[in-house]
C-alpha cells in the first residue's frame, strides 16, 4: 500500500520548488502544467486505490486497514422480517474488526448506539434496561416514531424555556449554579432555567467555532441551500453566525438544536465543552436531528461520566490509562513518575473528546464505530470465542490512548524532561496517528491485560 503522507509531501515539495524556484518566466507555464498533471494523476491513483478497498473518500485519511462492513454484507445480515440474524453477534464482530462503509453508516450507527431498545418505561436515563439487537423492522419503525416525538417534545421545552428567559427581568443575573447543582440541590427559585440559560450561551459559543472537517463526509448537508440554513438558524434562535457559509450555519444550528435538547434531557450534565466535538460527527452521518439526538444519547450514556461536575468519571478513566501503562511498561511508568506525569493528566483531552482532536475526521468515525461495536457486544453479553483474542470491552478507547502513549515511548524516555513537554507532544499529535495500527496495539493490550483492569 502506498504511503499517502509521503505522496502528499512529495507533491507539496515539488510544487514549492516549481512555483518558488523557477524564476525563469519561460518555464513557468510548462512547469505549472506538469505539476497540475502530476497532482491530478496522483489524486486519480489515490481515489482508485481508496475506492477499491471501500473505506473513505479521502485517501490520505486512510491507512492500511481491515475490510469494513459493506452494504451487501449488511443487507445479508437481516432475515426477511428485518431481524438481525444470530442476535447481531456476527454483525458486531465484523464492525469490531474493520468498521463500517460510509454508505451504510446512517443505518448501522443506531444499532451500535443502542437506539433500538424496547422502551418499557421512559425515564431519561433508565431506558437502557432491555437492550435489543433482535428487533424486527416494524418494531424499529415504531421505536423511531416514539423517539421522534420525544425529541420534538424536548425541542418544544427548549423554546418555552427561551421564551421564559425573555420574560424574566434583566436584573435576574444568572450567577452560574454549576458548582452547587452537582449536589442536586436547587439553589435558586428556578435553577433549571438558570442553568439552561448558561448552557445555551456556551452551546452557541461552541457551535460558531465548530470545525468544517465534516463537509467532505456529508455532501447533502454541504450543499444545503442558504434559505434552509437560515430558516433552521432562526428556528433555534441562533443569530451570531456573521458571514459563515450556509452549510456551516446549518451545521451550527443543528448543534444548537440537539445540544439544547440534550441539556434538558440530562440536566445533571447539561452542556459541557467537548460535547459539541462528540456530536459533530454524528450530525454529519445522521441527517435527521431526532435520529442524531438519540444516537448522541447512546454515545453519552458512557461518555456523560466524563462531563460530571465532580470530574470523577474523567479521573477514573485517566487512572485506567495510567494503570495500563504501568502494567505494560514499568520503565516508562517509572519515567512518568519521575516527571510527575503518572496521573496522565496530559491525556485529558484525548479521553474527554474520545481522540476527536487528535484524529482526522475520517479516522474518528472509524475509531468510534469500532469502540461502539465493542460496547454493544458487551451489552449483548458477547465474551469472545477464542481465549487469546481480545474480548469486547467498554474501555477500548482507554486502551487506544494507552497504545498511543506507548507508541511515543522513545520520545518520552529520551527527549522529554518535563510534564509540559509531554503535554505539548500530545497536544500537537493531530494528523500523525495510524488508527488501525493503534487499534491493533490496543486490542493486543486488551487480550493481555483486560482481566487485570476489569
Amino acid at each position, binding site marked *: 500500500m502506498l504511503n499517502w503522507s509521503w505522496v502528499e509531501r512529495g507533491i507539496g515539495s515539488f510544487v514549492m520548488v516549481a512555483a518558488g524556484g523557477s524564476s525563469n518566466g519561460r518555464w513557468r507555464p510548462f512547469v505549472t502544467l506538469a505539476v497540475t498533471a502530476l497532482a491530478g494523476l496522483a489524486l486519480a491513483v489515490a481515489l482508485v486505490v481508496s475506492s477499491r478497498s471501500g473505506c473513505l473518500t479521502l485517501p490520505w485519511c486512510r491507512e492500511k486497514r481491515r475490510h469494513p462492513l459493506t452494504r451487501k454484507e449488511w443487507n445479508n445480515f437481516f432475515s426477511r422480517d428485518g431481524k438481525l440474524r444470530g442476535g447481531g453477534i456476527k454483525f458486531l464482530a465484523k464492525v469490531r474488526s474493520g468498521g463500517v462503509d460510509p454508505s451504510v453508516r446512517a443505518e448501522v450507527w443506531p444499532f451500535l448506539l443502542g437506539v433500538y431498545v424496547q422502551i418499557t418505561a421512559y425515564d431519561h436515563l433508565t431506558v437502557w434496561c432491555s437492550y435489543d439487537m433482535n428487533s424486527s423492522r416494524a418494531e424499529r419503525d415504531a421505536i423511531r416514531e416514539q423517539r421522534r416525538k420525544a425529541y420534538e417534545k424536548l425541542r418544544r421545552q427548549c423554546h418555552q424555556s427561551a421564551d421564559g428567559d425573555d420574560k424574566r427581568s434583566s436584573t435576574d*443575573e444568572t450567577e452560574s449554579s454549576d458548582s452547587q447543582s452537582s449536589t442536586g440541590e436547587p439553589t435558586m427559585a428556578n435553577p433549571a432555567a438558570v442553568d439552561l440559560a448558561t448552557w445555551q450561551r456556551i452551546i452557541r459559543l461552541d457551535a460558531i467555532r465548530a470545525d468544517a472537517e465534516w463537509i467532505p463526509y456529508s455532501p447533502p448537508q454541504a450543499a444545503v441551500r442558504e434559505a434552509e440554513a437560515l430558516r433552521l438558524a432562526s428556528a433555534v434562535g441562533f443569530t451570531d453566525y456573521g458571514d459563515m457559509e450556509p452549510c456551516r450555519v446549518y451545521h451550527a444550528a443543528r448543534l444548537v438544536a440537539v445540544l439544547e435538547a440534550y441539556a434538558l434531557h440530562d440536566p445533571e450534565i447539561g452542556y459541557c465543552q467537548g460535547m459539541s466535538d462528540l456530536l459533530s460527527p454524528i450530525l454529519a452521518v445522521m441527517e435527521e436531528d431526532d435520529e442524531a439526538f438519540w444516537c448522541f444519547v447512546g454515545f453519552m450514556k458512557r461518555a456523560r461520566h466524563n462531563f460530571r461536575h465532580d470530574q470523577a468519571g474523567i479521573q477514573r478513566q485517566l487512572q485506567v490509562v495510567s494503570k495500563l501503562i504501568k502494567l505494560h511498561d514499568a520503565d516508562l511508568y517509572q519515567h512518568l513518575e519521575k516527571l510527575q506525569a503518572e496521573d496522565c493528566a496530559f491525556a485529558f483531552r484525548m479521553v474527554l473528546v474520545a481522540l476527536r482532536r487528535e484524529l482526522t475526521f475520517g479516522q474518528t468515525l472509524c475509531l468510534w464505530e469500532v469502540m461502539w461495536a465493542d460496547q454493544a457486544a458487551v451489552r449483548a453479553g458477547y465474551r469472545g470465542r477464542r481465549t487469546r483474542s481480545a474480548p469486547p470491552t467498554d474501555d477500548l478507547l482507554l486502551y487506544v490512548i494507552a497504545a498511543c502513549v506507548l507508541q511515543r515511548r522513545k520520545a518520552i524516555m529520551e527527549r522529554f524532561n518535563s510534564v509540559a513537554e509531554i503535554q505539548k507532544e500530545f497536544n500537537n499529535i493531530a494528523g500523525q496517528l495510524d488508527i488501525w495500527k493503534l487499534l491493533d496495539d490496543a486490542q493486543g493490550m486488551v487480550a493481555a491485560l483486560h482481566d487485570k483492569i476489569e
Partner: protein
Amino acid sequence: MASRRRMLLKVIILGDSGVGKTSLMNQYVNKKFSNQYKATIGADFLTKEVQIDDRLFTLQIWDTAGQERFQSLGVAFYRGADCCVLVYDVNVMKSFDNLNNWREEFLLQASPSDPENFPFIVLGNKIDIDGGNSRVVSEKKAKAWCASKGNIPYFETSAKEGLNVEAAFQCIAMNALKNEPEEDIYLPDTIDVAGGGRQLQRSSGCEC
C-alpha cells in the same frame, strides 16, 4: 544542561468560556488572530522568549478551558505558576463577575507560598466589538475591583486588533519574574543574542 539555565516563567490564563484566552495567547506569541479557535479542552501552552533588561527568559503561557466544571483539573496545570492572568469580556457582565471566582479558585488550587502577594493581572478583552458600544463593564468599575484586590494591574485589550496585547504581556512577564525567588534570578545564564527576544524595559512598568 546549559539550556536549562534560561529561566522559565510560567503564566496561567484563566477566565470564562469565550472571553478570548486562546486568542490573546496566539496574538501575543504568533501575531495572528482567528475567530475559529475551537474551545480549549484541558490545557495547552505556547512559549516565547522575552528579554528583560539584559537577560533572556522563556515565557511559558498556559491556556486553559473556561468552563467552571474543569476547574478541579487546575491543580495539575497550575503547579509552579509565576503569574496568573484573569481575562474577562468587557461586553459580558457575567465574565467580569466571575473574576473573583477564578482568582479564589486559582489561589486554592495552586496554593502559592505567599497568596497575599501572588501576582495577578486582569485583562478586559474584546474592546473592539461594535466600536465599544456593546460594552457593559466600564473601565472604572474594572479598575475599582482591581484596586480592591491589592492593586492588580489592569489592561484593556483587543486580541483581534492586537491592541495593548504586547504591553499587557510585558507587564505579565515582569510580574512573573518578581515572583521568582531571588537566588534563581541570579543563576549564571547564557545569553542567546540571536534568540529574537523582545526587549522589555523594566522602567516601562505597569501603569496601574
